[in-house]
């Protein structure tokens, strides 16, 4: 297992506009970590700092005690696989070859039977078997997302970071993917970090939830029982809700508060700030 620590991490695309402020937490057990929070709060920015797609302006991130500052992007690719929110291909290849690219960090020059085997297993896992020879660009958005996820899996890294992996999936596949990530993390001892907008998916399947709030800070970290409370949801999202317990997990029932007080309808504090 791999331990990830964030110490006072700050980041801004421009100096005057900090996106992340003093983010400190650590992930020292394998499991499924969900990052939740309103739009524009810096969730994607945070995960991109972990695998050095972005370099923090302040603070440090340690992967197994090594600072990412001192690691090359090639070193990091050994530890961390990243599945972005949207993936595209200008000249698309068949699904099997698209997934095979994920083996780049492990593969030597030739494609081996082992590579093909892992790609097949990943396609089986994500229900992509029948699409193996279809061009990537012939697929739907949800299928793209599953291909991207499969490409993340075949990298066989101890850490897997996913930016909204369930955004375009139908409910069945949403639940399926969430279950799979939880099961995979507990049984193979990997750390899965996932940005998630579906609070109920996060509440039911995450081992730990990281709650982010404006202006780019971590509000609280804890198990779903600890952080999914009416207070937290109201504080972070500005919406009332009722929490019920379903099969030992908290479940959120949202209540509409819109219209009760027009002034409270504040869509996007992050965006406002960046104008």
């Amino acid at each position, binding site marked *: 297992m791999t331990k990830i620590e964030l110490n006072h991490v700050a980041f801004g695309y421009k100096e005057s506009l900090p996106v992340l402020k003093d983010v400190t937490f650590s992930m020292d057990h394998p499991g499924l970590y969900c990052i939740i929070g309103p739009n524009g709060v810096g969730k994607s920015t945070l995960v*991109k700092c972990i695998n*050095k*797609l972005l370099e923090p302006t302040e603070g440090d991130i340690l992967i197994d005690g090594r600072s990412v500052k001192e690691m*090359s*992007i*090639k*070193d*990091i*690719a*050994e530890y*961390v*696989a*990243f599945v*972005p929110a949207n*993936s*595209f*291909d*200008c*000249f*698309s*290849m*068949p699904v*099997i*070859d*698209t997934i095979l*690219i*994920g083996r*780049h*960090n492990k*593969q030597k*020059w030739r*494609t081996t*039977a082992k590579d*093909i*085997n892992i790609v*097949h*297993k*990943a396609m*089986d*896992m994500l229900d992509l078997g029948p699409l193996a*020879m279809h*061009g990537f*660009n*012939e697929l739907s958005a949800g299928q793209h997302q599953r291909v991207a996820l499969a490409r993340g*899996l075949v*990298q066989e890294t101890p850490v897997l970071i996913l930016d909204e992996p369930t955004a375009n999936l139908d409910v069945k596949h949403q639940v*399926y993917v969430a*279950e*799979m990530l*939880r*099961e*995979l993390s*507990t*049984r*193979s001892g990997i750390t899965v970090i996932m940005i998630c907008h579906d609070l109920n998916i996060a509440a*039911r*399947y995450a081992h730990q939830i990281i709650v982010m709030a404006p202006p780019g800070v971590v509000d609280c970290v804890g198990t779903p029982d600890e952080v999914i409370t009416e207070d937290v949801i109201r504080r972070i999202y500005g919406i009332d809700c009722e929490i019920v317990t379903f*099969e*030992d*997990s908290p479940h959120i029932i949202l209540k509409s508060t819109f219209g009760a007080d027009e002034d409270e309808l504040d869509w996007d504090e992050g965006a406002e700030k960046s104008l």
Partner: protein
Amino acid sequence: MDDYEADPRISRIVSRKVTFWLREDADVEQQEESFQVYKKYVARKWIFMAICFVVILVVMGLAVTYGTFDIGFLESYEIIWDHLTGNIIDTTKDHIVVNLRMPRIAVGIVAGAGLAVAGAVMQSTLMNPLADSYTTGVSSGASFGATLAMTVGLTAATGSHAIVLNAFLFALIPTAMVIATSKMKNTSPTSMIMAGIAIMYIFNAFTTVLMLWADESTLAEVYQWQVGSLAGKTWDEVPIMAIVVLIGIIMVQLLSRKLNVLATGDETARALGVDASKMRIILLAIVALVSAAVVSFTGLIGFVGMVTPHIVRIFIGADNRYLIPASAFAGAALLVTADLLGRAILSPVVLQVGVVMAFIGGPMFLWLLMRRNSRVWG
């Protein structure tokens, strides 16, 4: 994990699939079978390249027979074979084939391969189906350099290769400018190609200005150069061009796996350990050298670089590990065929290969557009 307990949240099917995923000792037979299927799928790509190679050989034979001195189709191979084995029978025929007719074909093969590979790599690195040596500015730089030598006589060196050297040097300027633009700000591949097009217009404008002072014969010469031709090539022009093209192709072929990673987008590439912007600059610099080396000898031959990779993708897909060598073969085949057609169609008038390529390439490009093949156009 021994202490694993069934998680009530996880359905049995997910649990089973994860078990299958984690199993190291997967069914060996099954594994071998799927690997064989994959190998067959790859073998089809090699067959395409073999077919292109055969086309090159046949067209070469035909092209050698073409001319006022009568030489038979099979005889042409015999003469080449005899020459290679040092067993020359008829010195007149040997001279005609080897010294007069073969250089043109050799230059055609090298130019076609070089331009097509440059196009393929430019398209993949810039993620743009329109990228080639025109839209990245290389050609217009070369054109300016050559025009400068022909009209004003301003050259970097004197001698028979002054125009070639001038064209080559000026072809590198637009590339350097495109790369500099990408360095200045963290620009996207699209803005790099837009910079290329802007630079192309600037250089073309300069070329036009130079032509204002040119006399009629110089204008004709400039015009000849701008449409591209394989006429009047000799063996002493082949080595430099061939060496640059060959080394360039080998280098991009060695980087082709990284090029595949690069084509998935900058973020994914970085996450896979490939520094996208650095890799893009390296690849563009290599293929700019290759296309500069080609166009400075042949003049501007359009469409080979742009159309060939698209045609190849239809047959073998976009995997750069195969796209690059296949484009080399297909580009060579296409260019020597176009040159042969140019000599045959309006005989005895010889149509320049650049014109024939435009006549073939234009409709072909439209046809590709009409196909709406998502595998080609993204």
